[in-house]
């Protein structure tokens, strides 16, 4: 035993005698993680969050979250002598007078954008592969909470520098809160400390942005990751992989090295973006004052779809009994997103209700094998993309010689038409892919080699696929439709007949599939 080992052993002994750590750390170190590139999205989120904490802490060292008015006397000539908030002035100072400050600001902002993009990509991966199914419904809901928190945290961060763009964003936020019936006006006054833009808002959202929400984030992320740890990661189907096991690399050393290395990669890519590409050049926007506005005022991309929905909303307002209800704000900014996020949170339970499946699932679905879910996902993506396009309609109009009115009408109509079309097309596409899988199993791969038969006709040689490949293409389950008779054995109508009818119908639609190949079938075709 070397002396280094001895000292390490002594330290380990010290800890273990007090915490009994060896037994549970050993268990954790034996954990296995399956490899797939799409499993890395969650890690990008977690690492971006760490980058956000680090760069954000750097920024707080100089940022002054105050609406106190100061006269700018810094180095940026075009703003010299202008009255502005201390928040804006200190952001300018961070950008121009603290070495590396602008880099850190850009890292913070790019990282926030990457964070949100990775959350969305992670959510889509989990959705399309069915990783949210039992026993992971809790973690799915935690994920939706993180997404929602991310939207809010991003919006607050965007608002803090108090430039013209962020102030415009806040103006719109205030209008949304103000539109809530009954309590909206009071809420705005309490939030802003008076009529917009108030006197107390920036210090308040600063505390929320750097303390409250990051704290909640940290707690939720910890639970989220611990649940992944405890429940063990899902895996794609493949030879040797079952619902009862998990195949992959152990934590020590491979996974540790790869995951640790990937943190530096994420940080490095963020730093690279921040070095070469400008983001949120607040010095060009100017300080916020409510009388000013810039053409093409946009939120960051993850809010862009909401802005797009608000833009395309019909001009509806109800005036009655001395009160006003702004449907043109409530529907696109609160009601529709509320429905979408609630629907997302409950989706695992809705799907389980339709399929009647109460078993645990650790093997992922190939998206094509679950046509309805995949189609629903693509339908939702289509919806968001149309909204996003409309959110940037002014930029699209100038860059592609279009008219904002055309794009607006296109969005207003297609938001209703295109998502259902996307659903139908995707579902059919999934079924064709299933059919292609079936053909592949039955007839093998086309080799491109032609053989002339004695009869004179040419036939292409087909190479049978490997056992592994065949296993991947055939090991999935194919759902059967639920059967819920409307009346029981004695002819008495069951309660909830309408609900059951709906459930049976949905389940029937869900069970549409191209039958997969059975060994018997394959044997039969091989005999010919």
């Amino acid at each position, binding site marked *: 035993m070397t002396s280094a080992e001895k000292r390490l052993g002594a330290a380990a002994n010290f800890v273990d005698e007090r915490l009994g750590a060896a037994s549970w750390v050993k268990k954790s170190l034996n954990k296995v993680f399956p490899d797939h590139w799409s499993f890395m999205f969650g890690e990008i989120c977690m690492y971006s969050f760490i980058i956000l904490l680090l760069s954000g802490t750097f920024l707080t060292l100089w940022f002054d979250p105050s609406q106190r008015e100061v006269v700018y006397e810094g180095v940026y000539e*075009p703003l010299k002598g202008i009255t502005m908030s201390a928040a804006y002035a200190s952001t300018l100072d961070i950008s121009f007078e603290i070495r590396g400050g602008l880099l850190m600001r850009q890292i913070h902002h790019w990282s926030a954008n990457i964070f949100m993009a990775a959350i969305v990509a992670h959510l889509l991966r989990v959705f399309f592969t069915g990783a949210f199914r039992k026993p992971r419904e809790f973690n799915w809901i935690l994920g939706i909470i993180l997404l929602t928190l991310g939207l809010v945290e991003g919006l607050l961060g965007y608002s803090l520098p108090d430039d013209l763009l962020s102030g415009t964003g806040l103006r719109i936020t205030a209008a949304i809160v103000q539109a809530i019936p009954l309590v909206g006006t009071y809420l705005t006054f309490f939030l802003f400390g008076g009529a917009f833009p108030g006197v107390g808002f920036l210090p308040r959202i600063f505390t929320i942005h750097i303390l409250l929400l990051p704290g909640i984030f940290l707690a939720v992320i910890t639970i989220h990751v611990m649940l992944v740890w405890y429940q063990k990661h899902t895996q794609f189907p493949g030879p040797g992989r079952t619902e009862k096991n998990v195949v992959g690399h152990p934590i020590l050393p491979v996974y540790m090295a790869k995951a640790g290395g990937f943190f530096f990669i994420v940080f490095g890519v963020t730093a690279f973006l921040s070095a070469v590409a*400008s983001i949120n050049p607040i010095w060009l926007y100017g300080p916020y004052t409510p009388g000013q506005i810039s053409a093409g005022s946009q939120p960051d991309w993850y809010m862009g779809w909401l802005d797009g929905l608000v833009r395309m909303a019909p001009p509806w307002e109800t005036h009655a009994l001395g009160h006003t209800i702004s449907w043109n704000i409530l529907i696109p900014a609160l009601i529709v997103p509320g429905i979408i996020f609630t629907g997302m949170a409950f989706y695992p339970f809705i799907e389980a209700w339709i399929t009647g499946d109460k078993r645990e699932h650790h093997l992922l679905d190939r998206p094509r094998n679950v046509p309805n879910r995949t189609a629903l996902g693509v339908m939702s993506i289509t919806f968001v993309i149309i909204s996003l396009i409309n959110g940037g309609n002014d930029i699209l109009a100038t860059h592609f010689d279009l008219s904002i009115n055309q794009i607006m009408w296109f969005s207003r109509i297609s938001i209703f038409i295109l998502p259902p079309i996307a659903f139908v097309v995707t579902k059919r596409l999934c079924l064709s892919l299933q059919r292609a899988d079936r053909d592949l199993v039955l007839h093998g791969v086309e080799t491109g080699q032609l053989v002339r038969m004695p009869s004179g006709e040419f036939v292409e040689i087909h190479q049978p696929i490997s056992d592994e490949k065949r296993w991947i293409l055939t090991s999935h389950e194919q759902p059967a439709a639920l059967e819920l008779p409307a009346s029981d054995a004695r002819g008495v109508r069951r309660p909830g007949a309408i609900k059951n009818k709906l459930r049976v119908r949905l389940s029937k639609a869900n069970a549409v599939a191209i039958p997969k190949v059975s060994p018997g079938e394959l044997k039969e075709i091989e005999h010919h």
Partner: protein
Amino acid sequence: MKRLSRYRRHKAAAPLLLIIALLGIGTTFNIVSAAVKQTPSALERSVLIEEGKAIFLRGCSSCHGLNLEGGAIAPSLIGVGAASVDFQVGTGRMPMADMSTQAARKEPVYSEEEVAALAAYVASLAPGPAIPTDEDLNYERDGNLAEGGVLFRNNCAMCHNFAGQGGALTQGKYAPTLMGVEPKHIYEALITGPQSMPVFSDKTLTPEEKLSVIKWIKAAEAEPNLGGATMGRVGPVTEGLLVWVLGLGLLIAVAVWLTARAR
């Protein structure tokens, strides 16, 4: 000579020659027009007006009418002033090549001399805003940069974007980019209100304030990239695009490599 002739068939030869030729013509006209400006005697002035009339009848009257009265497709030019003509023709907006939603800035059809003649002719028929002189346009001396920024954000940014990159108006119309526009033309646009643009009267936006705005625009144009490539200075839309394409793209590429089995 022999070496030069070898390059004659080079594929860049034609465009290069064209540029040289254009530069040559441009310089010549600059010298000529400078000469014109120096001697505005009454006789020469009337010659200029006659010349302008000839150009007008040839190139403009089919739409704007023989007596500037306008027509079904073009507005009356009575009282628009020399500034308006100088702006519209000098930036190549007029003559309008196609009847699209709005006249776009392009390579001017007429030479500076011809523009001056046209402007003189139109101004001679009815009074209107005059072309600002170089003395009027000394924005470096008379403008205030920071104040120009405030005025710009109050009066211009809503259409032309926070950095003067242009923006969308209704029904396919747009506020053009202000980058690369001559100070004279910016000033003329402010006092004449071409196309969709409103007029900024001298009383509500004083000449000094106009110069401040121009000074700010010129500073924005010359401002180097302080934080990296700007992607058009149009705000978060292009930033979001970059995040998905480059940011997530690079990370996915690394993730694919990371999880692939080494050989």
